[in-house]
């Protein structure tokens, strides 16, 4: 788990396609003439026009206040659809968002606290190109995958928890890494629940000193198993972990996943997890089972790509080719470290091999970061 912005995802945020904040530079010459003026001060947020037509909309935000401002477009449930940060005092910023029909709240947050005065706007009509049915289908299939992965993870975690509670250290060590596969494969979605993720997947090194006494989750058990060699007294953490995973499953049921943010950006996020946590060996400090997580992260990203592949091939064949090559190379390298149906301990992977893995992850992560743009087109 990495510290990540916690999104307000309670309730059904059924926005799917409209996330697409569009490009200010390419195809919309003259957008500025149609720009909707937003005047922000430290205490007000005036929008020149509140009845808007669906499609790509350009907002021109003038910050006439004394603090750095942030402009947010909120869905009816209060979750953030898109935002433009760091608008300095006495400066203007242009911001392009594609909006479907519906009601939205535009919020100016002086001091960038996420709070501030707002104006409600109504969008009517049908945005051109909105809702390619294949994208909605891909998103639905992805949700099925996410749930299946968490279900599988739940079953494996159940077995792991049982071993911990039985005090069977050897068995628990064997079951630890497999218990995390489901979670890791859909981590970018699963970790959205900002209250659960830190409880389940926090690393000790990421905690503030005052948070350490409340540390819990997989990595606490990892440390007990590998460093202390005993899980005595840790039963309650095992129980809590399973309970939290069940809660993740319940909440996931209510989510509508978005092909841009949850899938494309999520896949990129999974590769970031690999690049910053797994390649360095920081994720599994004690168990050194990083390559198991590594594979699960990549598998989750691959699933996203597989579901979106027909669309990517159609819209950007070169990107599809780079992604094909990128995934293939990562899997080939990972295979070199397979051992007994799993992977070698990461502390046995030398610097030269880590460099190769890191290069392959960068080679895949860069084209993967372009997936969102292609899907959002």
């Amino acid at each position: 788990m990495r510290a990540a912005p916690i999104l307000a995802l309670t309730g059904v945020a059924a926005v799917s396609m409209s996330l697409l904040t569009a490009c200010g530079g390419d195809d919309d010459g003259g957008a500025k003439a149609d720009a909707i003026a937003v005047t922000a001060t430290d205490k007000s947020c005036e929008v020149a026009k509140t009845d808007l037509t669906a499609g790509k909309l350009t907002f021109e935000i003038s910050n006439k206040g004394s603090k750095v401002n942030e402009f947010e477009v909120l869905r009816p449930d209060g979750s953030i659809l898109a935002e433009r940060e760091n608008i300095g005092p006495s400066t203007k910023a242009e911001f392009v968002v594609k909006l479907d029909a519906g009601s939205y709240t535009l919020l100016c947050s002086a001091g960038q606290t996420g709070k501030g005065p707002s104006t409600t706007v109504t969008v009517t009509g049908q945005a051109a190109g909105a809702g390619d049915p294949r994208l909605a289908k891909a998103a639905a299939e992805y949700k099925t995958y996410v749930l299946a992965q968490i279900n599988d993870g739940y079953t494996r975690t159940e077995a792991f928890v049982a071993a911990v509670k039985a005090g069977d250290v050897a068995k628990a060590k064997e079951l630890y890494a497999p218990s995390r596969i489901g979670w890791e494969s859909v981590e970018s979605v699963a970790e959205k629940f900002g209250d659960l993720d830190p409880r389940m997947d926090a690393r000790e090194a990421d905690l503030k000193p005052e948070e350490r006494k409340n540390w819990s989750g997989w990595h606490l058990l990892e440390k007990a198993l590998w460093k202390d060699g005993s899980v005595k007294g840790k039963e309650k953490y095992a129980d809590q972990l399973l309970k939290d995973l069940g809660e993740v499953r319940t909440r996931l049921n209510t989510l509508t996943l978005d092909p841009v943010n949850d899938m494309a950006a999520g896949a990129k996020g999974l590769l970031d997890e690999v690049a910053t946590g797994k390649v360095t060996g920081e994720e599994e400090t004690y168990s050194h089972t990083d390559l198991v997580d590594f594979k699960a992260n990549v598998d989750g990203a691959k699933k996203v790509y597989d579901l979106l592949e027909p669309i990517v091939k159609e819209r950007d064949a070169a990107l599809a080719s780079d992604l094909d090559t990128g995934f293939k190379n990562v899997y080939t390298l990972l295979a070199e470290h397979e051992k007994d149906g799993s992977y070698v301990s990461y502390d046995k992977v030398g610097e030269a091999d880590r460099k190769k893995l890191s290069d392959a992850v960068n080679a895949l992560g860069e084209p993967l970061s372009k997936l969102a743009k292609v899907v959002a087109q």
Partner: protein
Amino acid sequence: MTAGTASDEPGPRRRARMSRRSMLGLSGTGLVAGAAAGVGLDRAAFAREGEPKAAEAVPFHGAHQAGIATPVQDRLHFAAFDVTTGDRARLVRMLKEWTAAAEAMTAGRPVGDGAAGGLSVAPPDDTGEAVGLPASRLTLTIGFGPGLFEKDGKDRFGLRSSRPAALVDLPHFPGDALDPARSGGDIAVQACADDPQVAVHAIRNLARIGFGTVAIRWSQLGFGKTSSTTPDAQTPRNLFGFKDGTENIAGTDAKALAAHVWASAADGAGWMAGGSYLVARRIRMHIEPWDRTSLGEQEDVIGRDKAEGAPAGAAREHDPVVLARLKPDAHVRLAHPDSNGGARILRRGYSFTDGTDGLGRLEAGLFFLAYQRDPRTGFIRVQNNLATDAMNEYIQHVGSGIYACPPGVRKGGYWGQGLF
């Protein structure tokens, strides 16, 4: 090494004072003020009038690559890449993308659609840290290492037969302690600029574009130029505290450049005509022992006096070097063209300090960069002659690379087009 592969130039001194403008006219790789180059509303527009120097953009296109004869900028970021793909088409595609990015960045413009204003769900094309900074005379110079032509016995890109004879594998020189992790590379890019952030931005963005095609093998920052290719400018000092490169080949000396720096079709490899060969050496200086060395010995080791930079037995920096007046093992004497069959190389090295090592010593030295028409008669010839150099007690070569730098890019062309 630069501390003086001091190819001190014999014969009449070339010290005619030139205005910068006349110099520009002669050099062909001269400077053009940002506005005059049509940079317009780009990053350069942020530079205030009356401060033209840093805002200047060096033209990217030309017969030769910029960054060789170009007046040496203040800062360096040098990167060596391994090519990780075996796909020739993908490599060519990247070289085209790199060329487009280099054209933009050297003109003070951002890469692609810029650092902001694009889709908010997509990462920006440009990484953004150079927004608001002028072009800062950024030059980007590419070179191809032996591994591009053949690696582990494999001809990955069908280029084996195009490898120039002059692109030799450098031999082992006495005293070498080369770290493979700081040596070699299939492709090298030298980014020089007057602002370190501009140079680092350039390498970072090229590396990003290159992911999947190349991976950085090693890179080096340089903070202070140790050589000048502008003879009427003040000669910079290296970390030994000595003036370095007093009689380097001037970027305006077309005759010397043609004779010693630019490769010609007649040399064997037609695609290298107008190009040059780069030898890069990371030279660690044993700073602390050097600082404890007496002034007299320091001056004997170098062969120049410390304050003025005059050759031993002379009064002024630019007085002719009389070899017989220098100690037999003085650096300047052994590196001098007269001691090397007339060999001259164009040096544009930089001082580096990568913090300190685990023993509390400065991890510092000279990142030596030398361009020449043929390394066999240039760097290799001179470096072999330095085997008895008194300076060797205070330095160690710890990294090394050799690269064939193709000629300049014509408008609409790309880096290395003649090779592919």
